[in-house]
């Protein structure tokens, strides 16, 4: 236990470092900040809610920089796409926050927020899971037929529809190999930003599927590009929270010491897998977060009297971080074994890169 002078509480250091490490790995791999996992965990550790949010945002900003640098080295960032989205995202966040304030004045913000989280995350989970499963089956068939498989395969027709919208100016995103109207990218930024602002999260889990299924970027590029957005939103959030005195820098330092390593591991892990593997992990993250939100919603709807629901939600949040982290690390391990010709489960070969990408 360590006494945090600014927050004025005792909390276990090792858990803070481990949370930073696990969320760093997950964030670097699927391109999210992980606020929806970290903030509830910090509250459980004893930090007040506002400080949990401030510490989380500050550590996300630092971790985002590390992940972005790594993904840039891996060639996973399309700067044209990233910078075009930033303006739309900022506008969207402002709209989302105003909408939240409106519901707050009606006195129903908590219930509306939890119901929206459940619906948004469940719909995203369902679409990502169904599409990824289809892509996985297709990759299995290609593998069986001896057809060479690329790094990416996605089966959705939505990108074609959005790329065919003929609204000038048309952008050529060279790294993402996408030609799309700038207005589509800005609109995606506004909508995902509004949802993120409303739900009070960074929004990576909304933007990554949006970049893949609406804009048509590959999953690796979506992850890298979204991390650039997270640096901007996390940096701004960290600044605002610091000005309000919501940040315990000692806690941030402990978390970030784990997150720095985790973010690098997670980013590097993307080079071992194909796009569908990243989308699988994203969909698992979404379904577990949905279950956590359902438990919290039930806890609120029962007048906060059934304590076991709150306890299950906490266990699920901690379990989710460990599960995602272990799944990612095991995928890397399976990829290594597959390269050496050792036994791996049947579902693994279509999801991992057989050769190191040059």
């Amino acid at each position: 236990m360590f006494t945090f002078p600014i927050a004025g509480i005792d909390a276990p250091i090792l858990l803070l470092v481990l949370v930073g490490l696990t969320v760093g790995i997950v964030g670097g791999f699927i391109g999210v900040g992980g606020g929806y996992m970290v903030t509830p965990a910090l509250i459980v550790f004893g930090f007040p809610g506002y400080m949990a949010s401030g510490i989380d945002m500050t550590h996300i900003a630092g971790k985002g920089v590390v992940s972005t640098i790594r993904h840039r080295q891996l060639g996973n960032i399309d700067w044209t796409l990233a910078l075009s989205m930033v303006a739309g995202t900022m506008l969207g966040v402002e709209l989302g926050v105003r909408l939240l304030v409106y519901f707050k004045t009606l006195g129903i913000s908590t219930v509306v927020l939890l119901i929206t989280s459940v619906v948004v995350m469940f719909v995203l989970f369902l679409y990502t899971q169904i599409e990824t499963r289809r892509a996985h089956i297709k990759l299995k068939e290609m593998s069986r037929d001896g057809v060479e498989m690329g790094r990416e395969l996605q089966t959705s027709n939505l990108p074609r529809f959005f790329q065919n919208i003929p609204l000038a100016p048309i952008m050529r995103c060279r790294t993402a190999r996408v030609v799309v109207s700038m207005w589509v990218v800005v609109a995606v930024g506004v909508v995902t930003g509004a949802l993120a602002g409303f739900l009070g999260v960074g929004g990576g889990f909304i933007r990554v599927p949006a970049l893949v299924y609406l804009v048509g970027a590959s999953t690796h590029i979506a992850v890298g590009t979204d991390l650039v957005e997270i640096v901007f939103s996390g940096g701004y959030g960290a600044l605002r929270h610091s000005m309000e005195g919501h940040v315990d820098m000692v806690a941030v330092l402990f978390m970030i010491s784990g997150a720095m390593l985790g973010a690098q591991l997670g980013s590097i892990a993307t080079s071992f897998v194909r796009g569908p593997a990243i989308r699988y992990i994203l969909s698992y993250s979404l379904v577990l977060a949905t279950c956590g939100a359902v438990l919290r919603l039930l806890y609120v709807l029962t007048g906060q009297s059934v304590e076991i629901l709150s306890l299950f939600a906490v266990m699920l949040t901690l379990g989710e971080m460990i599960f995602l982290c272990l799944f990612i690390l095991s995928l890397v391990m399976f990829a290594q074994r597959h390269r050496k010709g050792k036994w791996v489960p049947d579902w693994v070969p279509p999801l991992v890169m057989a050769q190191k990408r040059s």
Partner: protein
Amino acid sequence: MKRLINTMWGYWVLLLAFSLAIAAVAYEVWLKGRI
């Protein structure tokens, strides 16, 4: 066990159960009484 790991759902369930068990241990060791 190998048959369970050979299917994606089996591996998913196994890993989730293992993760929740670790979370339960972490709760017992560090967090009990804080919630």
